């Protein structure tokens, strides 16, 4: 018994030393090491982690992308920090010397737009609801990212998108982009379909092998967004979080999760379970493929439970 405790203590010391040397390594210059992957003609993605924001990944949990058109480069999302935006721009420069033509931001969540400082010389486009959301919550969202990932955020400031866009089809040189405005994952979700290549950038509307996040979600509207994706003719689906696939399997996966989540919480509220207990409700086996599962589930309980409960309890005075 005593020997076993000593072994554990020794292991603890070893772990601590390991962590310290890890920290020493991380004290060097921080870099995301962004490398673009060509996923279709003229089309590239910087594939991020499927985890949550951490001090080791610096918030690189997204699939930012760009399309090299004959009329310049279209950038889709600018990443979680100024550093990410700058690295991204440098990496794009290594692929093409064409100028940046326009930046699109799909929603107000931090990893979509906090790299925008690297693109202030071009138009940064977003839906009006996204612009309003960043004006209202941007500062708090940035502060929270400093807390979550620390020094990676150095020098990052809020840049509000400069150009409101609506649903439309726009030609950029040899590429035709369809801008698809939706709402559900957040109050304003912009999807971009490149009709020339069939690549769909879904923003936060579809998650793939990564648990969907719900801080600004209305589940019923989100399910309608998924219907809209199902109706599109596409060749490649690029979710902002998770794996890129040539099919719509992750539309069904996102729908399955949201339907289970909403139904489970509603049943639990209706059956008298308390919110604290709901954090520990069992999650079915089939969702084991979703990364950061329990953590995101618990965040979703915090986002969704209070409203469901408020709507279900009868007034008694």
């Amino acid at each position, binding site marked *: 018994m005593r020997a076993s*405790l000593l072994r554990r203590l020794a292991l603890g010391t070893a772990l601590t030393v390991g962590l310290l040397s890890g920290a020493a390594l991380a004290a060097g210059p921080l870099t995301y090491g962004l490398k673009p992957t060509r996923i279709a003609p003229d089309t590239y993605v910087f594939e991020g982690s499927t985890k949550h924001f951490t001090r080791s990944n610096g918030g690189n949990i997204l699939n930012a992308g760009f399309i090299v058109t004959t009329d310049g480069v279209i950038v889709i999302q600018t990443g979680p920090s100024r550093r990410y935006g700058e690295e991204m721009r440098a990496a794009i420069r290594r692929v093409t010397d064409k100028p940046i033509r326009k930046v699109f931001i799909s929603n107000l969540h931090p990893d979509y737009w906090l790299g925008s400082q690297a693109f202030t010389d071009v138009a940064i486009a977003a839906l009006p609801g996204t612009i309003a959301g960043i004006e209202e919550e941007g500062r708090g969202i940035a502060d929270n990212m400093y807390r979550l990932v620390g020094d990676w955020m150095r020098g990052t400031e809020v840049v509000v998108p400069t150009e409101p866009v609506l649903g439309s089809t726009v030609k950029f040189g040899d590429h035709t982009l369809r801008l698809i405005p939706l709402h559900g994952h957040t109050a304003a979700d912009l999807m971009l379909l490149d009709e020339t290549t069939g690549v769909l950038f879904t923003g936060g509307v579809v998650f793939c092998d990564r648990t969907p996040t719900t801080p600004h979600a209305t589940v019923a509207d989100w399910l309608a967004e998924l219907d809209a994706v199902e109706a599109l003719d596409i060749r490649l689906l690029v979710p902002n979080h998770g794996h890129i696939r040539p099919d719509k399997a992750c539309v069904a996966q996102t729908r399955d999760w949201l339907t289970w989540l909403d139904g489970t919480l509603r049943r639990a509220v209706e059956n008298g*379970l*308390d919110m*604290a207990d709901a954090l520990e409700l069992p999650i079915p086996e089939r969702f084991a493929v979703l990364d950061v599962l329990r953590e995101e*589930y618990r965040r979703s309980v*915090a986002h969704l439970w209070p409203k469901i409960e*408020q709507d279900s309890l009868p*007034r*008694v005075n």
Partner: protein
Amino acid sequence: MSNSVIRFRSALCRGGVLLLATAAPAVAGDGPADPLGSVMWEALRDQYFAGAPVVFDGRVKVMAPTSAEDTRAVPLSVDATALDRVVELVAIADLNPFPLVLRYHPGTASPYIATRIKIQQATAVRGAARTADGVWHVSGVLVDAAGGGCSAPPASYAQKDWADHVGEVQARLWPAGDEGTARLRLRIRHPNDTGLVDGIPAYFIETLSVSAQTAGGSPELARIDSLEPVSENPVFSLDVRPPPDATALILRGRDNQGGEIRATIPMPPPDARPAMSLKAMDPLRSVGQ
């Protein structure tokens, strides 16, 4: 999380405590050291449990998320049903400007209470149960958090007519289950303002009492002394034991500015089913722990 990781962590905790005790025996106070390693423990122990015997006891189950998503409403439950003859429960958030969250006098109810609380920063959150022999049984968890839950202005104030709705009660009672207790859930419209925002006085619910309406009188079933850290529009879950002849439950309460809360909660309809319990579920079916 696997059991071995939990055991390993607890060994680390004990190791840490050992090292501390060796390095600085003079600063150690009376009684057992805090397994959560909170700097406020000894001061809070002396303030809230003055002179009474205190033990750390895992039979008091405290549930709260390891990370607070909304620091203005962090779910918290304290369950001391594994102990006999509990006369009082308290909830404490160590590093809050007001550490004491509530005192619960379960009376004939089960020693279980759940609510949502404000958290000002990452902190130990505790539940303590006083048994009839005067011993406090303490347990708790660490909750990580971004700052500010206690000093944020209540969202209610953004609505022009908020004052017209203060004291509105939503409630539901489920029938008693196998354990003989009936789940009661209360939601009360109230800013529950801590008074930490400049120029706005504290305005929060102080007492809530649940009694049974019967032909022979209205015996009290349970009472909550609620304080600043309880969330805006507070929600409580209790497990009460209404007498068989109860025709309704009565909620009476008061806030610190003298505002009264009163509501009559109907008994559940005959076809209603008892509240569900997490204990009845099979954790083996779950993934992602």
